């Protein structure tokens, strides 16, 4: 007992610096993620901001939630969010993996590097800038895309003004902007695959495609799973920056997502109660999603964070 206790103290002494290193992170999480949860009470109040958060507010139960359900646009925003986020997640995994596999087969390292740089570049532009560029090149009257389509005799569609095309446009431009980043992660994972496996496969007469399928892909499986689990936590964040910069009243019904909706009713219309209610709802659903995805990853791929 005595010995055990002593070693425990010794161990703690040894590990103390590491525990201290955790402290700032815990503090920041507490301050910025846990204290703010107090604000959730606004969701159940007829909130008059001037009275202050802890002032004498009127409690109104679930009124804000029923108000939202009846509010035109809220449910559309939820639907749009799920659809947009779903496709962004699926394509955001598949495309970088494919590109990484293809780039890995490129023998010339110079070419590989320049391609890598080129596709990685848009990742560094903020959405404000990227959206400005997109609006210009996608404009049906003067945009580059429209002019090219006209050359081949196609009537250019209105990518950002049509409810049919707005969602695909959001998804593909997001992929365009971000797939370079994913590609680099997967390329890094590929370098970690044991090269002796490839040599053995070559001895057995495996072709390039077979090696890709039987060695490279299983080799980076864990990274793919990790990226998917991380992405699923974001399922209700369909990309505020992007949508806010590209949306217009004409495409609210196909492009409005929860975040832009909350922004409008909360900050512009100052309806803090309903906006918070929607935020609470969104957090609850996100929490559910990440729990499920983590469970699935654990069950089927034996993936665990801790």
């Amino acid at each position, binding site marked *: 007992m005595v010995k055990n206790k002593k070693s425990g103290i010794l161990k703690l002494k040894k590990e103390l610096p590491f525990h201290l290193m955790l402290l700032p992170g815990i503090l920041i999480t507490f*301050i*910025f*993620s846990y*204290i*703010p*949860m*107090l*604000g*959730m009470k*606004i969701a159940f109040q007829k909130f*008059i*901001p*001037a*009275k*202050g*958060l802890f002032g004498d507010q009127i409690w109104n139960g679930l009124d804000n939630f029923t108000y939202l359900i*009846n*509010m*035109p*646009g809220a449910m559309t925003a939820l639907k749009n969010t799920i659809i947009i986020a779903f496709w962004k997640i699926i394509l955001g995994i598949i495309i970088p993996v494919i590109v990484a596999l293809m780039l890995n087969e490129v023998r010339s390292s110079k070419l590989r590097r320049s391609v890598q740089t080129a596709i990685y570049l848009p990742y560094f532009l903020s959405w404000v800038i990227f959206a400005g560029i997109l609006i210009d090149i996608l*404009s*049906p*009257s003067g945009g580059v895309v429209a002019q090219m389509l006209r050359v081949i005799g196609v009537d250019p569609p*209105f990518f*950002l*003004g049509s*409810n049919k095309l707005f969602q695909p446009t959001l998804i593909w431009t997001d992929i365009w902007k971000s797939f370079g980043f994913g590609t680099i992660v997967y390329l890094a994972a590929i370098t970690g695959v044991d090269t002796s496996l490839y040599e053995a496969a070559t001895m057995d007469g495996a072709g390039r495609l077979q090696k890709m399928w039987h060695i490279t892909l299983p080799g980076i499986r864990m990274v793919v799973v990790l990226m998917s689990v991380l992405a699923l*936590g*974001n399922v*209700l*964040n369909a990309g505020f920056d992007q949508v806010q910069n590209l949306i*217009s*009243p*004409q*495409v*609210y*019904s196909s492009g409005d997502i929860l*975040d832009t909706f*909350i922004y*409008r*009713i909360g*900050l*512009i*219309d*100052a*309806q*803090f109660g309903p*906006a*918070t209610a*929607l*935020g*609470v709802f*969104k*957090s609850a659903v*996100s*929490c559910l999603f*990440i729990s499920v995805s983590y469970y699935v990853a654990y069950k089927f791929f034996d993936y665990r964070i801790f």
Partner: protein
Amino acid sequence: MRKKRMMCFGLAVVMTVGSLAACGKSDDNEKQEDKTKSAESTGPADPFGKYADPIDIHFARSTEDVLEGYESAIGQSMDDNLWLDTFKEELGIKVVYDWVVKGDAYKQKVNVTIASGDLPDVMAVDATQMTQLAESGLIQDLSDVYESYAADFTKESMKQEGEEPFMAAQIDGGLYGIPVTFGSYDSGDLLWIRDDWLDKLNLEAPKTTDELMNVIDKFTKEDPDGNGKDDTYGLAAHGTPSIFEGGYGCLKGFFNSYGAYPSIWIEKDGKLEYGAVQDECKDALEVLQKLYVDKKINPEFGVMDDNKAGEPAVVGQSGMSYGPQWLGLVQPQENYNNDENAKWSAYPIPGTDGDMGTAEVNLATNQWLVVRKDFKHPEAVIKMANVFMEKCWGKTGDNAKYYAPEDAGSLWKFSPVMPNLPLKNFDAYDQIQEAMKNKTTDQLTGEAKTIYSKLDKYYSGSEDGKQFYGWERIYGPAPTSYASIKEMKDSGHIIMNKFVGAPTPTMTEKMSTLEKMRNETFNKIIIGEADINEFDKFVKEFNKLGGEDITKEVNEWYTSVQ
């Protein structure tokens, strides 16, 4: 990330707590300072009295591009300009800006400021925000200070168009805001057309909607700019932030032409009804849908704001738009700068029954200056209003220096307190017409004199005078803005919003959502994504989601003031 929303509110909490703490402290300091100061300034109320010991007033305000441009052009900036100097010299008031933001962001910033509780001494808010602030007791009742400190000229001026500007500020019998008055009749839509295009195609300015359709058709198809390309649209339109707000491409007047009044409350059988849910809107929407399908309005209009919609006009690809009187200073002027053959005119809007249309106008006073509860010198704001009015339009004033000098037409906007003389533009127009008829300029005073000298420079044909083309199109002889507005006003073709009270409880809560629903539905119907019958569904939804309650409350107000 998933906690982003909560984080925002959490931050608000932290900021609120922090700022409350900070407030507490500074209040104490101020109280002490104020005690010493108010001791000095006791005595009878003097509307123009100077504080012996200069006082600081903290303001918050919005700014715009034109004001920022003056820094390089004439060396005056937000923090250092003629108006701030005047207030300091004549009243002993030093204006300090807690924050200044540009344009649309102002409303949001005020909302956040209200939420944080950290108010400046004085700021301009809209009716909804004013009601919120008054109900939560953060601003003070100004009725007494207004009564004793407002100069006679100020009082007269503010009520020039009637009691309306004060009605929304009357909450529970107190006066909670000083109206930033503007001329309501100035805000009605007119039909701006390029006369040279009409001449080229042998057309007349449209007086009925049928003629309007004809002009739209010809402007689209018959190459009015004569460049041999199919690059013009008949009628300008914009859809962001809504089809009823803004200058070039505003469609409010188009609806008015069809007897629909989509953004005001109208009287029907003695009861007030919201204009956007009346059947007339359906007619207008049907026509617009057809125009869209036939590509007679820009297919991209839905994502354009008025600036974007005005760009084709500047380069001569758009020649007709509904818009307010001041539009002349923007696209027509810029178009004229590029092409001197461009001839723009503002006509009364066409109507359906052979007579001219009736334009809707809202109460143009849509901002009120509110004073923080603990601020010790509420009278200072009223003194500033007195000085502003007097310098711009009073007997001792100098309009050309203070209001709109030649090199800085919007100089007046540098003043943080800027109630306008509501009928000044009509008055100026009358004086100018009189002077032109008699060929004498002796009797011209104030603003009319300033404007006349601008028109004179334009008429002289000098290179320098070309920048005043827009002014001429507003104040010159018919068909110009004021000639047409006067014609419409005198013949009873202007309809005023009947609801001018403080926003009702349900209105505060739900009106903006309902308006958004209106904008979205209308846009969708126009571009054909929704069937015209979607309008009936909108009316039902509107009533279900609060419209009915709002209408009831509005009518209760209406009976109470009749």
